[in-house]
């Protein structure tokens, strides 16, 4: 099963964390390796350039030493220091004290050839200390051509290399995600198969209950039939959820102008039997004439899941307050509530916070998917042991 096929599945927070950690680590090490390679290449290019300059300066130094020797011999007659237009020089004695200098930057007498700032310095130790000079320093400007070439090569080869590393990262990420995806896909497939087998018996039960003339039944039998009806409706509801989840990609969307007020009342009516079994009271505050452009089945799924959750997680003799206004639906229960730290995870698929109640943990995931599709805003407010309030805005 490919990854892209299931991209609409929300990643769990722990999965996201692992993914972010993996990507950060991968990026970090990739960049470190890249920098290391760039640094090695830079050092190599610099050394190559210095080697070339060294040859040139070595040759120049021979002439300069001859001039210095001549000056040494005639020092009682002349004190004119030999100079050159492109190369500056300096002489230092054996105690590293400056005798004379025309340099722009202070030399490092421990080295032979090196780059300091934008200058290249070469140090030669003549055989004899003419004018007391143990060190002769030659300095010339670095024209920077080698550096421009280095930058050009880095852009030419380094950038594609970086892209390759990124592509490799993408494939590694896919490999990394595969086990997670496979688990979700496996669960989806299982639900799909189970759902298919549920459909026929549930439909048969519900159809038969509807055909029963309840007026002719004894009160005891009527109560039994009502309980069967509730159970069948609950199964039917779960069936609808699972079908939606599994066939979501293949169901054709048919958006139309929906009378939300009427739909909401119908769904409350539908759930009233189930609510009655837990002695839950509906408090309806539904404004008439609220319309929304949405697919009817999807809107039903959204409302059903909100109401069924409000019933499922409510206490006996609890209340469900449903408010409909232009632009918002609020479903508030008086149930077990959700702790603040879990609020962010309630829309994750297969996430259940209370294992004592039934369900697969897909109801709110469906709500989230529909809300995302129609750009509806979901706001959840809850207090443990007091209430849960879900607001859908458009």
């Amino acid at each position, binding site marked *: 099963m490919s990854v892209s096929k299931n991209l609409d599945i929300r990643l769990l927070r722990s999965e996201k964390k692992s993914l972010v950690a993996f990507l950060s680590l991968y990026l970090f090490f990739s960049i470190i390796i890249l920098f290391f390679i760039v640094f090695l290449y830079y050092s190599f290019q610099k050394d190559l350039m210095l080697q070339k300059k060294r040859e040139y300066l070595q040759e120049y130094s021979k002439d300069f030493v001859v001039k210095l020797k001549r000056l040494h011999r005639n020092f009682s007659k002349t004190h004119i220091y030999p100079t050159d237009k492109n190369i500056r020089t300096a002489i230092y*004695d054996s105690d590293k004290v400056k*005798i004379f200098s025309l340099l722009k930057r202070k030399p490092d007498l421990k080295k032979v050839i090196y780059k300091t700032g934008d200058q290249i310095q070469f140090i030669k130790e003549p055989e004899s200390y003419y*004018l007391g000079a143990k060190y002769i320093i030659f300095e010339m400007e670095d024209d920077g051509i080698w550096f421009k070439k280095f930058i050009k090569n880095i852009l030419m080869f380094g950038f594609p290399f970086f892209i390759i590393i990124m592509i490799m990262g993408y494939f590694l990420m896919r490999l990394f995600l595969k086990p997670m995806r496979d688990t979700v896909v496996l669960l989806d497939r299982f639900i799909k198969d189970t759902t298919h087998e549920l459909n026929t018996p549930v439909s048969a039960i519900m159809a038969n209950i509807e055909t029963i003339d309840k007026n002719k039944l004894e009160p005891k039998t009527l109560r039994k039939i009502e309980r069967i009806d509730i159970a069948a409706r609950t199964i039917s509801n779960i069936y609808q959820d699972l079908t939606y989840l599994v066939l979501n990609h293949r169901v054709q969307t048919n958006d139309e102008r929906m009378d939300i007020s009427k739909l909401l009342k119908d769904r409350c009516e539908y759930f009233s039997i189930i609510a009655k079994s837990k002695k839950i009271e509906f408090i309806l505050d539904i404004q008439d004439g609220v319309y929304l452009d949405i697919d009817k089945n999807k809107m039903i799924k959204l409302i059903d899941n909100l109401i069924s959750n409000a019933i499922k997680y409510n206490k006996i003799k609890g209340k469900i307050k449903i408010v409909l206004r232009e632009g918002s639906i609020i479903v508030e229960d008086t149930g077990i509530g959700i702790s603040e730290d879990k609020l962010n995870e309630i829309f994750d698929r297969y996430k259940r916070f209370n294992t004592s109640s039934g369900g697969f943990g897909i109801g709110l995931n469906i709500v989230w998917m529909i809300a995302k599709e129609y750009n509806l805003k979901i706001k959840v407010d809850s207090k443990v042991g007091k209430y849960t309030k879900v607001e859908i805005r458009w």
Partner: protein
Amino acid sequence: MVKRYIVLCFILLSVLSARSNIYERNCVKCHKTQAVTLDKLFYRYLLKYSSERAVKKALYDYLKHPSFFKTIMPKGYINRYGIKLPSKLSDKDLKKAIDVYWDKYKVFGKLKVKK
């Protein structure tokens, strides 16, 4: 105030002249009659010892204990003129004379660039 300056200048000149006199009396006097002048000798030392510290130390060592192994003069010169006698100057005076000799011929501050 002016008097004090005059006295100070006088003392300074006297000290310098005394230092110079040690060098003049004990070095120049003999060397001006010799084949190798003092300046040539200085640049030989510079060529071998480079720094002020090393040159002064070599001069002091040689003048105190002259020997065939310490001399900077060529073999032929030594064969002809021999090794000089050890200096009779006190350590202090010898060092003063060497300082004057260094200051007179040193390269520091003398080099210039052709304009």
